[in-house]
């Protein structure tokens, strides 16, 4: 190697900076709150020859950690095969096809070829979650779709910008097929402008260090990331680590779906074998290959955040056994649940399998659902239709260091929840409660965090409620003797009468009238370690703060309380804990 390690580090920081500036530019200029507020987007640099990930913005949505290298790779292949147009400088391809290296249809990817001295040097690409891409329900999360066409408009890679100019005809087709189209031009321009920022900054980097040095650094950094990941893997004991994780149902057939995982650690590689997982399902809880791979990568990145995002980091990770399962769905299987739900369950399976191998690093299962409640209807007072989303967090898993965090965002997300006051300003609803889901933290030496408990009323007009959630049937897994976290519950009160969806966590179009209410409780995190080992002081504190009832404390933690206010009965506690 001719590059010294210091220049290598400096170029690495430079490439990272290019991506971070693209992320910043995209979020700040975007209209869609999903991008601007929730940061449901990602930007990166990909290799010219195979689309391999060179660098990606640090603040991108975790689920996109591996997907864009697949979509870029697919685009390169299609160009080579003559199935997509040949690139010219200034072009930007648009694509959202899930089966061509994507996630769900709402994640729209742009890719821009980057040229140096007339030669393709690399690709700049970004993904942004559009609020709508057409389909049977606003927003695209249909709980009961049975084919991808019901989920929205599917775009193969076509050049939306040709030599720097927006193709108005393609854009007209898109905007005629999506809801709230008038604001999308703002997002399209923001997404394209971010790639321009990247182009400018990358040119500056190349001018400064020279094309040859940067090229060499890119391939060396890829090797180094692989070395770093292999070093971490080597510390794991050789052997096999297995787990299962369960999805309540696919939304159409009320049977659980299983992710079966066997991880084989051998030397400095990990093989993730998903053979034996459930077959493709009828409803939208299928995953596509790129999302499945990305879910494994993001889980590993949660475990080893020190390893930089680079194709090299993924090299020691082999994924097998997905063919023929719901983790590698083919056209026209519906896939809207892949990014928001299935990917999180894949991560849960990875965590559950690796806890015994890496007990200091890996946590018990987090809530692991995006908790998507959509309410669409008509507001007579304002004379307009509306679609409201309440995306909810839940408890995180207990871990070696401490209890799990309460109301954290999804494993694959980094977004903030909208305030109740903003929701009530925007939509004809009134919240009656927005509180801690008491008792939901999975018991353990370090307990899981608590989920959210909210109840919301439709004030006027008529609307339909839809739910795409999970962990209604099985709570997030406890580990090393810890108990599972509390399950997700949905109750709809129509004319005061409670109704529970047949699939517990999924249902489409439940009609609501004024005064009807929706009550949701999201999952708590799994517990870590034996709950009877939890310190009595910590249990006393949890009871004092109303997080568990005295009865729960006795049953889950073996701590007996008497009287009011409840006091710990030390002798009964010792007896319960078998230490009398």
């Amino acid at each position, binding site marked *: 190697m001719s590059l010294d390690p210091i220049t290598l580090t400096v170029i690495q920081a430079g490439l990272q900076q290019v991506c971070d500036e693209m992320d910043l530019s995209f979020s700040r200029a975007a209209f869609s709150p999903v991008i601007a507020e929730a940061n449901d987007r990602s930007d990166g640099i990909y290799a010219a020859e195979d689309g391999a990930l060179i660098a990606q913005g640090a603040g991108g949505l975790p689920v996109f950690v591996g997907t864009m290298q697949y979509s870029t790779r697919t685009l390169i292949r299609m160009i080579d095969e003559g199935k997509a147009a040949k690139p010219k400088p200034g072009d930007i391809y648009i694509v959202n096809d899930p089966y061509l290296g994507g996630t769900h249809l709402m994640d729209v990817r742009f890719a821009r070829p980057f040229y140096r001295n007339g030669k393709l040097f690399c690709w700049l690409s970004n993904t942004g979650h559009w609020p709508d891409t057409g389909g049977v329900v606003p927003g695209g999360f249909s709980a009961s779709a049975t084919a991808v066409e019901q989920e929205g408009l599917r775009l193969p890679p076509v050049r939306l910008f040709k030599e720097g100019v927006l193709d108005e005809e393609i854009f007209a087709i898109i905007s005629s097929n999506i809801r709230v189209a008038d604001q999308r031009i*703002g997002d399209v321009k923001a997404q394209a402008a971010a790639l321009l920022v990247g182009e400018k900054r990358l040119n500056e980097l190349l001018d400064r260090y020279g094309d040859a040095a940067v090229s060499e650094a890119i391939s060396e950094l890829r090797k180094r990331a692989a070395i770093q990941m292999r*070093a971490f893997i080597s510390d794991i004991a050789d052997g096999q680590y297995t787990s299962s994780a369960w999805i309540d149902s696919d939304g159409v057939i009320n049977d659980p779906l299983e992710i079966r995982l066997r991880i084989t650690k051998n030397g400095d590689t990990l093989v993730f074998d998903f053979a034996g997982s459930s077959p493709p399902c009828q409803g939208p809880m299928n995953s596509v290959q790129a999302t499945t791979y990305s879910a494994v990568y993001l889980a590993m990145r949660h475990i080893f955040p020190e390893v930089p995002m680079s194709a090299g980091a993924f090299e020691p990770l082999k994924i097998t056994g997905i063919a023929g399962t719901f983790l590698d769905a083919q056209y026209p299987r519906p896939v809207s649940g892949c990014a928001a739900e299935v990917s999180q369950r894949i991560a849960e399976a990875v965590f559950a399998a690796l806890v015994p191998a890496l007990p200091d690093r890996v946590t018990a299962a987090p809530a692991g659902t995006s908790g998507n409640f959509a309410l669409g209807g008509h507001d007579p007072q304002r004379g307009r239709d509306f679609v409201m989303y309440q995306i909810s967090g839940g408890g995180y898993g207990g871990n070696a260091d401490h209890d799990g965090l309460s*109301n*954290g965002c999804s494993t694959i997300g980094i977004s903030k929840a909208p305030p109740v*006051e903003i929701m009530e300003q925007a939509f004809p609803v009134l919240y009656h409660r927005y*509180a801690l889901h008491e008792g939901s933290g999975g018991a353990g030496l370090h307990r899981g965090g608590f989920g959210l408990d909210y109840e919301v009323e439709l004030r006027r007009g008529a609307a339909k409620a839809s739910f795409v959630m999970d962990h209604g049937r099985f709570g997030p897994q406890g580990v090393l003797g810890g108990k599972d976290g509390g399950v997700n519950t949905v109750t709809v009160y129509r004319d005061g009468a409670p109704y529970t969806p047949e699939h517990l966590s999924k249902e489409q179009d439940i009609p609501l009238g004024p005064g009807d209410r929706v009550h949701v409780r999201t999952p708590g995190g799994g517990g870590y370690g034996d709950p009877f080992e939890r310190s009595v002081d910590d249990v006393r504190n949890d009871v004092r703060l109303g997080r568990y009832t005295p009865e729960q404390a006795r049953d889950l933690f073996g701590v007996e309380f008497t009287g009011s206010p409840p006091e710990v009965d030390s002798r009964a506690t010792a007896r319960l804990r078998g230490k009398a």
Partner: protein
Amino acid sequence: MGESSRAVVGVDVGGTFTDLVALDQTTGQVKLAKVPSTLDNQAFGVLNALKAAECDLAALDLIVHGTTTTTNAVLERKLAKTGLITTAGFRDILELGRRTRPQPYGMKGEFQPLIPRDLRLEVPERMDCDGKVVTALDEDAVRDAGRQLLDMGCESVVIHYLHAYANPDHERRSADILRTFWPNDHITMGHALLSESREFERGVTAAANAAVQPLLDRYIRRLVSELGANGYDGDVLVMNGNGGMVSSSRVALEAAKTVMSGPASGVMAAAYVGRKAGQGNLITYDMGGTSTDVALIRNAEPSVSNEIEVEYAMPIHVPMVDVRTVGAGGGSISRVNPAGLLEVGPESAGATPGPICYGLGGTEPTISDANLLLGRLDPARLNSVKGGVTLEQVKDIFADRLGSKLGLSPTEAAEAVIRIANTKMAGAIRMVSISLGADPRDFALFAFGGAGPSHACALARELGIPRVLIPSRPGITNAIGCVVADLRHDFVRTINTPLNALDPSHLHGIFADQAKQGELVISKENIAISEVRHLYSVDMQFVGQTHLLRVPLERPDIDLDTLQSLFEAAYFDRFHVALDNIRANVVNVNCSIIGTRAALDLSVLLDPALRKSTLDEAQIGTRPVFFAGTWVNTPIFQREHLPIGFALDGPAILQQMDTTILIEPGDHAQGDADGNIIVRIGDIS
């Protein structure tokens, strides 16, 4: 006091040191002191500093004080016992936050709310988003909740109801009820500090205020009485996070505004020095032992934000100077990662044990140690360290931890540490700058803090910044900020109205009201000021967008067409995206009223008696310093000895009590009349 306020003391309590500058405008005499902070009761440190500077308290006219009392209380959760009374169904808002985790990767993290769950009580009441009553206030429940909180030992209380920004009646009525029996003034209404929607942010802001109010109140009372007992009979002004001062008698009312007081004063000093030096556009770069802070100053006005998060899930949404932490400072630890690449930070040796060269038992190679090995810091100073560290010991650690793994000599490893650290810091500074819509190349770098001036020239080169400005006293800039700070009051009104539905006279009316309120408060503060300035701005967005863009206005009587075009221009400037068919929204109407104090003569900060008439006389020696792979015999100057208006070419090292300034080869340094140093960066200017 008026015109007589000529003898002024600025005293800033930082995490490690309490700094003081005493300035007598009549005699031109300056006294400085740096003493250890006494964090349990900061008043001792303040008195020690006054003693160390031999200040005659009876002869002082004004003391301006920057304090970390409330900062530490919030960050360490050493708070007054505080209760919350809130809307039924919503007591957990403060604990649930906005559904976040501390970092994108790693599913760990903890969060401790400011008020524990058992002290958060609910009462029946509810407003809707238009401020209409949905459920009437249950006054008996308020009374019961208040009594219960008192019984549980609460000293302070927050009343925080949903949509109180739209209609504060229930909060006001509840406060009236509590006042009939609450034993003190520590009652904070949620809408009082921040009258904007977003219940978590408003609630945390109010809770932070309530939870630090009794502490600040007690501290200030004690300080004032101790000062009084020592003969001082003037007022004590306290720095707010917005960079303005407020009288000790009023400061505890809005205690949350002092939470970022320390960093703000340094930025105010920078703005003041920059304005006098004709450098209105500055990026401030404050590198100390444990943190590196950055802020942006445009046209001599520091960037102020209402949306600061002082730590994870701790938004305190009152106007504060927008200071961002970009690194861990001189104590940042360097290591070689398993991929064989050198990393600097984020781990820090902190203040204890600190870098190896502190001699307090540090064994990890840090930025400060690297500067020492490269000759940038004076190796002779190791002799004064109590632990008795030798240069050889530092070298051995660099060889063992870094050099052997990278195939570099200890010196080369040290240079690599500095290069990587500067690259990372420059990247972070650039991100701060562009996130505020500014290209760093249009700014000068204002370097202060103990370690800032050693890195500033390299950083400027990396960022394409043509000029570095180093003030006369980089190590006590915060205390100087206290001395020069203005009176300042900020007003924000949320109107959230589409531009085409806005009545211009309504806008003008709001500005006029805000100006009147601010002028009234300033007149009551009874401090001599030379002029009153008004800063007008609106926060705007395109309809459908969530991010706000601040549009500064030259005058308040603006028409709507001009406003639209100013916004579009600002938008294009920031995002390089033109959107002409989408309507604009006016979200916030802002006015800041600033009482400017009489100008100070800054040249006295460096004792004129020490000044020599030639550069040669100011030079105290030479020493080898490592630049770009070779040792260069570099002249060392005593900063205080430099003649006014000196000029020299790098490489050079300028030493002074509170910092070391590194002028790199190719750079050109020049002194100005106020004692500042302006460095022209070779390759850029």
